[in-house]
């Protein structure tokens, strides 16, 4: 497996692709609940370079999905600016792909038909579509399963199929909202490796929400740590290590622990755990 990955990974020089740069400036978002306005995102500023892999972590309910849906254009009601290569986002576009936690493949379509569905609104001529679909199925290592229905695929395979569908239009920006959240630990490691390989070959910009801090530091060039109520950026951690990375690298582990502490730290202070014995958490960690 390791050997396989090594061979597959092209050592592309890290050059910046021409497009896929995302600019978020002073972005705020409220949800209306009855007459009340619930602030969900509060003045987010973020610049993402073309070709960058950015991970987002944060407590549940802090607005990660909301942010990703705004970038995807599924929700266009926001204050501030979201621009992809300078163009303001005002709806969905084939330039921006989105992968959800559930694969969202249509159960009545085969894998091939599901992936092909993404191409219906492109001007790619019909004969070429089949080839492009086959290429992307091969990209996620699912060749041979073209005629399978989603229920015949394992969770990991279905999620890889969703990745193929999202990539088949060659979006400049791929958004991933906890894409591996529903997978078991072992499958997750496999799909992480594939994601990394794909990212290294395609060089499109990727923004991935995850609740797995280890995954965030393993894949990301930067990790955005968010705070809740209202959702805002608390810290941005640079992961200045070349890809592909060694999962067992001590630096990665230290960064992971640091971010975990950042995420859980204040909560230990503000609301005392209901343990009988109060452990001096910070000292133990130091």
């Amino acid at each position: 497996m390791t050997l396989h990955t090594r061979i597959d990974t092209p050592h592309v020089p890290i050059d910046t692709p021409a497009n896929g740069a995302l600019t978020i400036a002073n972005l705020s978002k409220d949800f209306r609940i009855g007459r009340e306005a619930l602030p969900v995102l509060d003045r987010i500023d973020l610049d993402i370079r073309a070709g960058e892999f950015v991970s987002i972590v944060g407590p549940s309910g802090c607005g990660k999905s909301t942010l990703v849906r705004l970038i995807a254009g599924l929700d266009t009601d926001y204050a501030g600016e979201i621009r992809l290569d300078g163009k303001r986002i005002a709806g969905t576009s084939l330039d921006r792909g989105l992968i959800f936690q559930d694969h969202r493949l249509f159960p009545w379509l085969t894998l091939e038909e599901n992936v092909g569905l993404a191409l219906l609104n492109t001007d790619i001529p019909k004969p070429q579509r089949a080839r492009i679909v086959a290429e992307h199925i091969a990209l996620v290592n699912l060749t041979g399963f073209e005629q399978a229905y989603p229920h015949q695929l394992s969770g990991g395979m279905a999620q890889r199929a969703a990745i193929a569908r999202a990539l088949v239009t060659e979006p400049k920006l791929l958004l991933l909202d906890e894409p591996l959240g529903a997978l078991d630990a072992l499958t997750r490691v496999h799909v992480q490796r594939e994601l990394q390989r794909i990212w290294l070959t395609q060089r499109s910009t990727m923004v991935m929400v995850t609740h797995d801090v280890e995954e965030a530091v393993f894949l990301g060039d930067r990790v955005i740590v968010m705070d809740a109520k209202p959702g805002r950026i608390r810290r941005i951690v640079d992961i200045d290590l070349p890809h592909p990375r060694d999962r067992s690298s001590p630096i990665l582990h230290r960064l992971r622990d640091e971010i975990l502490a950042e995420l859980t730290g204040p909560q230990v202070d503000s609301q005392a755990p209901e343990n009988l014995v109060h452990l001096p958490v910070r000292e133990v960690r130091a």
Partner: protein
Amino acid sequence: MIRRFAQGIAPLLALLLAWQLASASGVFPAQVLVPPSEVAATLARLWQDGELGDHLGTSLFRLVFGFLTGAAIGLAFGAAMALSKLFETLFAPVFQAVRQVPVLAFIPMLVLLLGIEERFKIVVVAVAVFFPVALATFDGVKGIPKAWFEVARLYRTPPLPFITRILLPAAVPPVLTGLRLGLTRGWLVLVACELLAADSGIGQMMEMGRQMFRIDVVLAGVFVSGLVGFGLDRSVKLVERRFARWKEA
């Protein structure tokens, strides 16, 4: 397979045997509790002289026309209610209230309006079919997960493939269930109508049998209407399975 079949048929055979024994015991007058062997003979005779075929043909003709009318209107009405907020606000309350009325309760009014000719029977069947189909279509279209609409928006799926590849397949399984329910209910109501007022049809054949104290004819009618209902239900179930082949195999 053979075992399953045997298990399915055994209770039926037991019932027939008990029936045969009961009528042979002479506890009930032979005219009331006709033995199954005699019913079978009557059935064969009715079939041979073409009487049964005529009645069955007439009934099925009414069923098909009533069903097609009721199903078409039900599909359109249910889809309109599911897709248009305005339409739902206007018609949903009336629809939900009226569908609680047993279809048979409409018969006296329909007789006054339409008489007891063919038109009447077809309309009654259409009414019986309309409600379950409209309800299933409404629920089926409403029940399509928001997630799938989002996928269509993400890939900017054009309207036509959106309807044929996403909307219809998503709504077909519940709609088919509604159609099946409508078809069997239509049949039920039709036989009941024919019992009440008709000059032909399976129900009328039974009513004639009753008037002439031919319980064997009545029972032959019971058997045939049961068989037809069962067959209709099974055939639509087969279609349902065909459409759901992408589900768990």
